[in-house]
């Protein structure tokens, strides 16, 4: 399944990422999880390979439990990102508090603030320097679509998704730390492949069913 999604690599030693750094091709096999459909084609019901699904869920659990963000603040939203890591909100509860200063060791890039023309290439480079699997949260209106600088912002990129793929959009100007936490949980859902327990407590369902049509 790796070969299909990523193309064959003749010589693993000769694999490069977008900024021209070598990547260990042998590890690509491990990294490409594919989708559930891929998995279903491998793991037939009653097959001995069912252990694979367990391993995969272990991998996913590990990845969603330890999302290390990059210390990467762009603008105002960075202050709210700091607050989210701070005492009251404590990103570390989710295992996401180990802020790494270097892109090489981080899993998550929180684009917290306005991306300008001058900075955009740097953002892209940082994204390329991160090792797979990696995720991006676009935090705040500016990163989502230019925000308040949409109209006369001659130097503002109208959304970071013009430069790099974004997994979760966290709206707000700036978003409250709670919203960033919610975004993180959404990202965890995305890695998990299904809605997690934390996202929807039972009382919400009860509450919804009690609302008259």
């Amino acid at each position, binding site marked *: 399944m790796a070969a299909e999604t990523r193309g064959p690599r003749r010589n693993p030693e000769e694999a*490069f990422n977008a900024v021209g750094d*070598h990547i260990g091709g042998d*590890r690509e096999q491990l990294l490409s999880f594919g989708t559930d459909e891929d998995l279903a084609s491998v793991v037939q019901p009653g097959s001995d390979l069912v252990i694979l699904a367990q391993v995969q869920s272990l991998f996913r659990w590990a990845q969603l*439990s330890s999302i290390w963000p990059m210390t990467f603040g762009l603008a105002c939203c960075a202050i709210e990102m700091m607050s989210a890591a701070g005492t009251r909100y*404590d990103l570390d*509860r989710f295992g996401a508090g180990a802020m790494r200063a*270097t892109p*090489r060791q981080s899993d998550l890039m929180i684009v917290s603030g306005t991306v300008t023309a001058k900075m955009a290439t740097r953002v892209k480079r940082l994204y390329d320097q991160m090792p797979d*699997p990696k995720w991006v949260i676009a935090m705040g209106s500016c990163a989502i679509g230019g925000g308040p600088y949409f109209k006369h912002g001659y130097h503002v990129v109208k959304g970071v998704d013009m430069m790099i793929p974004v997994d979760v959009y966290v709206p707000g100007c700036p978003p409250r730390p709670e919203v960033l936490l919610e975004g993180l949980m959404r990202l965890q859902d995305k890695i998990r492949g299904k809605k997690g327990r*934390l996202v929807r407590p039972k009382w919400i369902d009860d509450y919804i069913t009690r609302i008259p049509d």
Partner: protein
Amino acid sequence: MEAFQQMLSQAGWAQGMQPWALSGLAMLFAGGTILGGVAVGAMFFIWTERKVAGYIQSRYGPMYVGHFHGVLQSIADGVKLLLKEDIWPTDADKFLFRIAPLLVFTGAFLSFVVLPFGPDFVGASLDIGLFYAFATSSLVVMGVIAAGWGSNNKWSLYGAMRGAAQVISYEIPLGLAVLPVVMSVGSLNLGTLAEAQRGWLWSWHLFNPIFFVSFVIYLISSLAEVNRVPFDLPETESELVSGYHTEYTGMKFAFFFLGEYADMFVVSAIAVSVFLGGWYTGIPAVDAFVPAPLVFILKSVFLVFVQIWLRWTLPRLRVDQLMYVCWKVFIPLSLANLFIYGLIRSMVG
């Protein structure tokens, strides 16, 4: 290792084995146990670090991974790091870049062999144990230099140079500090050093005024030896991004991480066996029924906790100040300490 050999020779299935096979098997067992212990211990310390940091900063730290206070956090981190993509910079020195994390981890791991967890629980009861431990733990700095040079990154290079200068300098007060104790006991064997502190609490070397000075010098120098705050100059996050391991990803980075925490335990354990009474509780009556390894490990963990505590409280020194403290304060002080102890011994006898 001897304990393993003994256990094996008593086991029924190993009765017919050749002595060399038996000792080889024992070696494997001992090595495996230590390796597992190092890895699990380091993971535990990483979790502790995050929880203690959380407590000091009025946060919780990891809470949800593993349901109870994030106990599985380090395992999740480890598995995740294992799955990360492996990147090395195009112009990196590939050999050095690859071997550096192994050097760091091996250096930390080798020292475990001589740590006396109890009278019988020691990997290899070497007569030059202390000497060996210092020698192997300075292998770490080889890894740091290899990482910094091999990464082809200027920040890494800075980290490596700082690390080299720092570790080489602090080896000296570290070695000099324990010398009075060695003189007193007359052995470099860590087990013997611990054995010498049998009895009541005040027979610990810590409570001897001369040895107390040694202990303080040792404790502070050991912080520099394992690159912890306030001496974490090789990886100063606010100056050198991540220092010597800036370019490392995934498992290679994890080895640095594990190595650092294992090293913390090693220096603590040496301090325990040299100064803090080894596996003795300080009350002879209690010693009889408390398992020795437990006491030893608890004491070491406490010293590790002290290191963590300092890290989250203190700021960091500058390079020249670090060197100043070593060469102009600690080395003269430890030399004077050694001299005074020698003088007293020769006079008192």
